[in-house]
């Protein structure tokens, strides 16, 4: 049994449209493929990154910096996959 771990990383939203609905949907779908709890923080607001509405609530435009935090047995893989998606501009670049 693997031990739960926490991995956090700051990422910048790079796609021109920002973290809009379809992008948020991709992020949330990917986050939900992992067991870890996933949180996204912008400024002082932290939301559940497995919830579409939570992610949208951050209203991230291009250039926004967010902190991604994964907590669980697969935190490292989860963080890696999500950071990759964000840096790839959610496939929109």
């Amino acid at each position, binding site marked *: 049994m693997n031990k739960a771990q926490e991995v956090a990383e700051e990422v910048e939203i790079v796609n021109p449209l920002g973290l809009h*609905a*379809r992008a948020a*949907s991709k992020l*949330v*779908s990917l986050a939900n493929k992992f067991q870890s709890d996933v949180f996204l923080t912008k400024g002082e607001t932290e939301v559940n990154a497995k*919830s*579409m*509405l939570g992610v*949208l*609530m951050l*209203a991230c*435009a291009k250039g926004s910096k967010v902190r991604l935090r994964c907590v669980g047995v697969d935190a490292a893989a989860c963080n890696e996959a999500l950071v990759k998606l964000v840096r790839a501009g959610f496939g929109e670049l």
Partner: protein
Amino acid sequence: MNEGEGGVGVVVVGHGMTASQLLAAGQAIVGPGALDDVVAVDAGVGQTPELVAALARTIAAVDRGSGVLLMVDLLGASPCTCGLREGSGRRLALISGLNLAMLLKLASLDRSRMSPTELAAACADSALRAVSVRAAEEMR
């Protein structure tokens, strides 16, 4: 719950063409899957025999034994009252104030494991949180 019967059926009803358009938008955002079996009924300008018939037919069609969630735009308006009347006698829950946030929440819920009332409560919680007033500068 009647497990294994496909879960709670969902009907979205709104004035004008709002139901089908909002559902199409929700489906475009979440992609294929979660909202595919949700059915929209466009109510036009109000109660007509066609609307009554469409609601009766649709509610009966989506009820697979686990009940029906009726999502309407305006509490007490024709799409709402008509839907409730045509759904009477069924295990039905109503949620009003239809919006996109509510549909996106619905897409994330397991309708085979929740009752119509539980689904309505979860959707309402998200929809309420999605209504927010902030000055534009706070969003930066």
